[in-house]
């Protein structure tokens, strides 16, 4: 064990003297995360930000039905669902939807109230901006739901008339009664937690693992360098177990990895306001991610003959796994790509952090377990392959 620690210590000292560890481990991920956060803000998907949809209403009806509609809109504004702009006519509605200053406009036509009361057809118009399909849908749903209310009252009266239980001359009075009937099915809301990392933490987390691959890769490349320079033979001539050389060098990578990830978590929460969740859970995930990444890089590097070859292979694996996890191009949630992405340890680190964001430390355990499985599987094979590769 003592030999492992000595080798690790020596490697650490060497790597700290070479400033690239600081650039790759801390400055690079922070700088990129800062830029990504600046550009994407909260807008990578609909995660993290509450959204207000901007709807306009032009009420040229001037009757009681139009007024009732305005009341509905006011209550939606009070609930914080939408932001409302009052427009003074169809032309204004068209113009506002056209230039995108509102997402959608609802136009209540002239004579709508009269038509509804008389049981005739009338048309509410929803004009949506082409780039605001969701707002358009919500506006149309508000209008449809309102229209259905009016229609249901008419339908009730028509049904009563058809079954002959009421007289036609009472229809007008009955309409008021019918429209006051309570709904038979109501909607009860449940507020779900958000098990998703908010944008700034997502970028720091994704990018720090990406750069972690390169830090982790250095342990095996440094072994290959020692072999080329002949110092490896001297190391092997010493009375120490062969595996302790790789273990020592990997330990150095693990230590650097944990330190750099920890610094990143702390710095990003201080300067970028990133929220990471329960610190104990974050610690577990950091440990799991670093072990998994070091294990994978050791195995990959062990297939190489020269340090340059190892660095190339490792870079390819690092970029591929990071791409798969959505670090560079975030995936739409729920799709095929987001399922494929679970092949990459990066994704499990991100998923664990997401689960943690909406819960307690124990919520990080499943992802931690998967990361440890990656670490054990790749690490054990990696040790064997690297051990063989050590023959001078």
């Amino acid at each position, binding site marked *: 064990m003592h030999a492992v620690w000595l080798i690790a210590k020596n490697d650490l000292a060497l790597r700290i003297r070479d400033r690239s560890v600081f650039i790759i481990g801390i400055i690079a991920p922070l700088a990129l995360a800062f830029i990504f956060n600046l550009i994407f803000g909260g807008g990578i998907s609909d995660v993290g930000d509450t959204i207000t949809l901007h709807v306009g209403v032009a009420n040229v009806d001037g009757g009681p039905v139009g007024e009732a509609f305005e009341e509905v809109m006011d209550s939606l504004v009070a609930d914080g669902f939408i932001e409302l702009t009052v427009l003074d006519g169809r032309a204004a509605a068209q113009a506002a939807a056209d230039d995108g200053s509102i997402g959608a406009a609802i136009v209540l036509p002239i004579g709508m109230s009269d038509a509804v009361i008389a049981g005739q057809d009338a048309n*509410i118009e*929803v004009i949506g901006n082409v780039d605001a399909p969701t707002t358009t849908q919500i506006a149309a749903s508000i209008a449809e739901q309102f229209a259905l209310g009016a229609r249901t009252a008419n339908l009730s009266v028509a049904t009563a008339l058809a079954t002959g239980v009421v007289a036609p001359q009472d229809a007008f009075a009955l309409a008021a009664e019918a429209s006051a*009937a309570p709904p*038979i099915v109501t909607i009860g809301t449940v*507020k779900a937690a958000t098990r998703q990392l908010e944008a700034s933490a997502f970028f720091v987390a994704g990018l720090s693992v990406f750069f972690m691959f390169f830090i982790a890769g250095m342990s095996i490349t440094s072994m290959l360098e020692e072999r080329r320079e002949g110092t490896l033979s001297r190391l092997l001539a010493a009375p120490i177990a062969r595996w302790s050389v790789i273990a020592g060098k990997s330990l150095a990578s693990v230590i650097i990895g944990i330190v750099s990830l920890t610094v990143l978590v702390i710095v990003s929460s201080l300067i970028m306001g990133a929220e990471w969740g329960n610190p104990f859970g974050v610690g577990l995930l950091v440990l799991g991610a670093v072990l998994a990444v070091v294990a994978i890089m050791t195995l990959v590097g062990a297939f190489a003959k020269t340090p340059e070859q190892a660095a190339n292979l490792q870079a390819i694996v690092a970029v591929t796994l990071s791409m798969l996890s959505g670090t560079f191009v975030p995936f739409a949630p729920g799709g095929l790509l987001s399922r494929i992405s679970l092949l990459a340890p990066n994704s499990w680190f991100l998923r664990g952090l997401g689960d943690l964001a909406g819960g307690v430390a124990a919520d990080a355990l499943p992802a931690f377990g998967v990361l440890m499985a990656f670490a054990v599987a790749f690490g054990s094979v990696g040790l064997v392959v690297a051990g063989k590769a050590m023959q001078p």
Partner: protein
Amino acid sequence: MKILSIARVNLVRFLRDRSTVFFVFVLPLGIVMLIGAQFSGSFLPILGVLATDGAFADDLILRLEDGGGVEVKLFDDEDDMLLSVERANLSAGVVIPADLDEVLANGGSAEVGFMSRPDGVGPQLQVVVAEAVAGASEQIIATRFAVSKGAEPEAAATAAGEAAAAVGTLTVGRSVAGEALFENVGQFDIGASSQLVLFMFLTGLTGSAVIIENRQLGMTTRMAGTPTSVLTIVLGEALGRFAIVLTQGLYIMGATTLLFGVNWGDPWGAAAVLIVFSAVGAGAAMLFGAFFKNDQQAGGVAIVAAIGLAALGGSMLPLELFSDTLKTVAKFTPHAWANEAFAELVRRDAVVGDILLQLGVMAAFAVALLAIASWRMHSVITRA
């Protein structure tokens, strides 16, 4: 002639490097494909529905699907659906109680559960669900009304069904207004041009490690020892970088056109952007090669600079979606001008004459970078 042979050696070394195959030829296409895949799916919010068989549930699901505003995904486990909502795999979820038909048949009222996160469009989708519920309820409400007036339940239900088709209706008509931000854009178009710009610059910068290596190994000094002027060496290196960046650009342009049918607009315009931006990439590579001493450090900074500038220049999120401040910042990156030039060519059918401003600014970037780098290279070589 010496300039050309120095350039040729650089290009050959670049093409022989085995990692080139992945980073230059495979990776860019992979990313363009991934971005394209993002555009192929629907952008509709996904609504989970937990339902057991039943007339009301079937009607409700049908209405949600026909509404066109959401994509419906059916679930049979409530916890599973809740977790999907929490993980943002779903925008919201609807729970239809199993005994709904029975409760309604007995004249009772029921509650449909709606779950959403506080963020995203989930809360607003409640309106969409409420519309579908109101639609599915109308005949039952009408039947009950008639029954309350003394009608036979079965006769009332039949009458409600018949009246539903005949009763005067307040309809909702929809129209679309405005000019789409990304009109005439193919699935892979935006990804291809933005990644073209990103990768040309990235390949240029990461290639700068070779310049540093040449200096470390003393190759540059040895060249200077032969009867070759320093200017020739610098120009040769720069031309080599230019050839490499241009190769990357030509490859992405050609491969995405063949594989994904990407439209690059006016060919002369596209060629002009490609050439001028190659000069920018070459200039940046020379700058890195001239100023850094350690190729590992240069590699780390190169990745950050290449990806960071590309992001700021609109290669990750289109410039049109930037805030006003950020749009101003973007103007300081050559990438923004290249992306803007491609936007003009591809989306607004511009020709070379329309993008002279963009080409001019990029050329200015290239000249400035090459001038600083050459001056520095000159002093580095002569000093050694």
